[in-house]
């Protein structure tokens, strides 16, 4: 009997431990005096749009550019509904590729769970099969859709995957956005945080993250290899999206550079909308099957 009670208490504690620490549907910003952990929790809250009930991105453009300048492009639509922990689901995502034609129609439905130790459930609509296929979650260090970003960087990295140290506060030196030639965010006040992965022998030994004090978003990251050399950088343009008096921190552009190969991936997210009342039925297999291409 005592062992049973102890077991149940452990389960309850574990459930609490991985439950969402920050409230869903709340807009949060970092404050002066916060610890590295508190700042990073807000960053993940914003990264996965957990401040909104739903999210629609009908126009996402991805460029793959090698060092010679040779460019390929992908277009996609993306939708998300934040489930708030219902049935342990944190959020559901639907991504539909609309270009190029040989990938057109490829649709990916993902359920992400509150339990940080639980992989996502992923379903794929594959046009060449004309059916929905359950697939194994990609390895986290695999390239996301052939880009310079990994699956972990885009969708699976969670707060508990790293340990954090606040290195200080500084005004960001600015980032030369190669795709447009603009200097971005020069002088922006930031928290500077070192993040070390808990996974042994991981694809990076540490990363240094600049967190914008205003939006709480990670505007710049440097990835270090085993010998302490920067091998990859990632810039994210965070902007405010306003709706009915609420401000949502949103990613409008990303540029990720692999310094070893000279290849970079650039993403533009346009025409984003939050809290438009996207229905949960959009994130079902029936919705995947509507794809025709």
């Amino acid at each position, binding site marked *: 009997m005592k062992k049973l009670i102890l077991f149940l208490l452990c389960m309850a504690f574990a459930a609490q431990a991985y439950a969402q620490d920050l409230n869903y549907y709340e807009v949060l910003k970092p404050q002066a005096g916060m610890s590295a952990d508190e700042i990073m929790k807000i960053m993940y809250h914003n990264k996965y749009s957990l401040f909104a009930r739903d999210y629609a991105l009908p126009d996402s453009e991805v460029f793959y550019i090698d060092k010679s300048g040779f460019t*390929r492009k992908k277009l996609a639509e993306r939708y998300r509904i934040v489930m708030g922990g219902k049935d342990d689901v944190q959020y559901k995502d639907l991504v539909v590729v609309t*270009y190029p034609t040989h990938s057109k129609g490829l649709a990916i439905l993902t359920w992400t769970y509150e339990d940080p130790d639980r992989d996502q459930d992923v379903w794929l609509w594959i046009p*060449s*099969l004309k059916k929905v296929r*359950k697939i194994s979650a990609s390895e986290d260090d695999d390239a996301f859709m*052939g880009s310079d970003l990994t699956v972990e960087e885009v969708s699976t990295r969670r707060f508990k995957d790293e340990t954090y140290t606040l290195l200080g506060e500084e005004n960001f030196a600015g980032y030369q956005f190669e795709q447009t030639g603009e200097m971005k965010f020069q002088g922006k006040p930031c928290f500077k945080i070192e993040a070390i992965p808990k996974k042994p022998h991981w694809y990076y030994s540490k990363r240094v993250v600049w967190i914008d004090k205003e939006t709480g978003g990670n505007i710049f990251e440097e990835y270090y290899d085993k010998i302490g050399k920067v091998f990859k950088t990632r810039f994210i343009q965070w902007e405010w999206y306003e709706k009915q008096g609420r401000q949502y921190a949103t990613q409008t552009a990303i540029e990720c550079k692999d310094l070893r190969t000279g290849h970079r991936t650039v993403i533009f997210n346009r025409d984003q909308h939050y809290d438009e009342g996207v229905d949960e039925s959009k994130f079902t297999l029936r919705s995947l099957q509507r794809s*025709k291409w």
Partner: protein
Amino acid sequence: MKKTAFYLLFVFGLIIATARTASAGAVSFGDLEMAGYLKNETSWKMAGGLREFMKVKNIFDLKMNYKFTEWLEFFTEVNYWYDHTFDIEGKYQDIVRSENNVKLKRPTKVNEWLRDCYFDVYTPRLDMRLGRQQVVWGATDGVRILDMVNPLDYREWTIKDYSELRIPLWMANIEGELMMNGHLQLLVIPDYEPNYYAPAGSPYALRTVVAGAEASANPFVTVTTIDERPGKKFENTKIGLRWRNIVESGVLSGLEYTLNYLHTYDFASSAYTRTTFGPGGVNIQLTRRAEQIEVIGGSFSKSITKGLVGDILKGWTIRGEIAYIQNGAMNYGTDKSIAGTVDVDQLLYALGFDKVFWTNWEFSTQFIQMRYDSQEVFDQDQYTLLFGPTRGPLDEVENLVTMRIATDFLYDRIKPEVLIIYGDDNDWRISPKVNFEYNDHWTFSTGVHVFEGHAQHLNGQFDGNDQVFFEAKYSW
């Protein structure tokens, strides 16, 4: 004339494709969206030093979608092609002289180049797709267990994607949402087409077709063939029902399962023979009958998202499928020789396992078993059931294993993969290939198909068809 029309279409497609080269996305005229491709598929037989073409096919494909409103769309796909092999290779020229066989070179009827053609009606809880379409059931790849809604075109055996082999049918496909992730699908299929089998003498003529042609060629044998197809009557309508659900909570959370029922006709007609002896020799009346069958089954897919103990089995996806087919019929006899036809029930099932290793190496394996249960008595000391495609002896239990390994390099631009299919009669096929994405429009593929085994078995019947292939595709 038709060749000219095809090349005019090909050039038209090239013009559209060129005009769209610098543009993003498919061609769009308001609510009309178009996309398509031009493709060449060429293969050479390996026997004899790559001197014989097995395929020189040029394909024009165009998909169009028109959005009337948020809830009403029209979609169509036309796919026109010309295979020059039958012009180039002298050994095939006689086959296509027959009017029935011109379709080996190019489509001859509308339903041979019109792929999909349907209206989509969307409501909050009900989707309807009305028209010519494919419906795919099942959780396995490359094997037909529950995937029995549409017939197949076997002119190239099964070396192409099934979406290209399936023959679309006119049907009503209605799917209703009874629970958030629980959907009931109803299929009403008044249309019927049998499987298409390439004639004797063509590159992928099934052994059973060749055996039939050999019998017909005997000067002392007269073969009369009667095709019994289901008439276009209401009572011959095929009906399908599928319940699909995803378990949302509990230990089985994320488990997707289906329960399936299909009342249909077997697309592989059963052969009934009646032999009489006359003064001129032997008269064989061959009746090819599409049997009305009932298919009952189900499938499931589950990804192990959390290790059972530690990380054990985490990352694996397990799939399964089962179908019980009632009221079918099969021939019995000796190799290539039909002695009679009996009612046979079949039980087919498969289990599949998928996992990604070493960052981006995908492994997918499937175990398939097929059980044949004769419902009538026949002399099993002298005869066995005969395998439809080859007319070879069939065991009561047949086993198949498939394995697919795939990876990618150079930012997903180079994608090698290999598919291995192995039957328990030491019969196998191995198909390695590489896909290369040159840019947003051009993709190339090259590879090999190797068939080994005895002629009586699934892939062994094409031992001798080992080939190298190359494909170039321009999409817009």
